[in-house]
């Protein structure tokens, strides 16, 4: 009796340690990221970092301004959302409400495969196919633009948005749908007056997770956005090259002298990125919780 009990306890403890380890890893990442990031502010003031308009990490008068990089990330992400949300939500509605079950069963796995394509493959596709196309279509000096990055990221965020929105739409209770139809509403009226409002928090969560995916993506933006650290204009900046925060870290971390200001600046950029994705996930999570209450 005793040994059985202690065996149970033992297994429980092992599982507990393993799951705590995941949290510990997150904690460690935070620790190292912020520790090295904060060292930047010995040399540069926080305000200069957050409001600086120039990123000249290797010049004699080095300048670490976050603004061009932050706005670069923002622009590319906003573009990706504008592109992927209508497409993603429409696909989700079609799959869960309109499509024949057989068609839906056929479509769903293909959308999920999109999520499994390695990002460097997307990047290569973008570079070889989309970049020359953009340059020709818009008659630009170069096809490596924010919009190119947005479209590629939009495609990459699609599976997240479609899958989660689809779940949200499917879990709208059938009684709501039947009630609406019984009152004489058409199917389209039912979809946009009843189903979407009922599933809106799930769809919002999908969008937030899509944002999280887009803002943290590195390889694709590195390959197709041109990486020019300039402050983009809006909305004309979509057709100019931009540099995102992730691309900056990837570009410069390779050979930066360890312990230099530049090194700390890259960690500071990483910390900002971490905080942003953390907040985005937090918001997505709280929206999701709210939606659970609403449906049940």
């Amino acid at each position, binding site marked *: 009796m005793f040994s059985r009990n202690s065996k149970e*306890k033992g297994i*429980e*403890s092992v599982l*507990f*340690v393993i799951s*705590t*380890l995941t949290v*510990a890893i997150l*904690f*460690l990442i935070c*620790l*190292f990221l912020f*520790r090295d990031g904060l060292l930047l502010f010995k040399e540069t003031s926080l305000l200069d970092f957050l409001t600086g308009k*120039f*990123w*000249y*990490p*290797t*010049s*004699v008068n080095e300048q670490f301004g976050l603004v*061009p990089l932050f706005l670069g990330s923002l622009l590319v992400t906003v573009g990706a959302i504008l592109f992927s949300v209508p497409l993603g939500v429409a696909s989700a509605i079609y799959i869960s409400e309109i499509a024949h079950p057989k068609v839906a069963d056929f479509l769903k796995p293909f959308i999920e495969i999109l999520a499994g394509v390695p990002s460097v493959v997307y990047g290569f596709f973008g*570079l*070889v196919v989309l*970049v*020359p196309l953009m*340059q020709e279509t818009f008659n630009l*000096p*170069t*096809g*490596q633009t924010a919009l190119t990055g947005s479209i590629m990221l939009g495609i990459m965020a699609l599976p997240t948005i479609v899958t989660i929105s689809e779940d949200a739409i499917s879990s709208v209770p059938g009684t709501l749908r039947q009630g609406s139809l019984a009152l004489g509403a058409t199917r389209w009226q039912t979809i946009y007056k009843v189903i979407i409002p009922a599933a809106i928090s799930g769809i919002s969560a999908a969008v937030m997770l899509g944002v999280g995916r887009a803002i943290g993506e590195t390889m694709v933006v*590195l*390959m197709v956005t*041109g*990486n*020019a*650290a*300039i402050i983009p204009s809006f909305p004309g900046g979509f057709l*100019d*090259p931009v*540099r995102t925060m992730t691309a900056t870290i*990837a*570009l*410069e*971390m*390779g*050979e*930066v*002298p*360890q*312990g230099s200001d530049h090194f700390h600046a890259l960690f500071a950029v990483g910390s900002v990125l971490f905080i942003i994705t953390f907040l985005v996930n937090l918001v997505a999570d709280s929206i999701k919780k709210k939606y659970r209450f609403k449906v049940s």
Partner: protein
Amino acid sequence: MVDSLKNHIIFTLLVLGLVLLGAGCTGNENSKDSAKEASSGRAGSQEISLKGSDTVLPLAQAEAEEFMNENPGKSVTVAGGGSGVGITALIDGEVDIATASREMKNEEMENAGVNGIIPVEHAVAYDGISVIVNPQNPVSELTFGQLRGIYNGSITSWKEIGGDNRPIVAISRDSSSGTYEYFKEEVLLGDEFRPDALTQPATGGIMGEISQNPNAIGYIGVAYLDESVKGLNLDGGNGSAAPSPENITSGVYPLSRPLYFYTNGEPSGLTKEFINFVMSEKGQNLISEVGYFPINN
């Protein structure tokens, strides 16, 4: 219930303790590593280490591999990090050979003197940097002044330098590239790169964009030149020269530079053997294979 809660708390504390321990240890890592390297890097041992320029890295790597193939039991380790990093390591007595894509600076010489290190320079190869444009671009030569104008942003249209009426898209490497540093020093003369210059993480990216974009201009190692792009003739003040192997080894082409090994004093033992190998016919042939230019003709 209380018991399991207690257990949980203990485990959490343990894990936290490990985390903090890990964090505390990292600060000392560097100094320990360098002490270890210093003790192993003695002339006469069967093991030497090289550190420095990333431009020299592929060359040094190839030489070291071939050298170790021929001399089993002898070990040559090669590391990158940048010319400055390598020279600092030599001054601190951490490595046997520092590799550099530039000459040692005066202040580095002074630092070496303070540490009792006498750097000896060995030029082992030539490297050339080619400025490339799309083959459709009618421009085929540039002066350094024009090139500087293109990259600092004062020249924005090909029309200003005898080309078509097209905007110039200047492409640069990322700041971790040795070529970036060299280009900045030689061509920009202290100016900043124009902020709207595209930055590519690798030579392949530059080639890809330029081969399909008639507006673009970029710079790459001469070894990467092929027919998908056009290498421009450059005029550094002494007449225009094409990026040909002859012009690069003779120094007529302005964007060519020797690559160096630095040793502490005249090399001896394994260090000497290795440098002799690099300078031998076989070693110099290897240099051409990697894409640089032999220094012995």
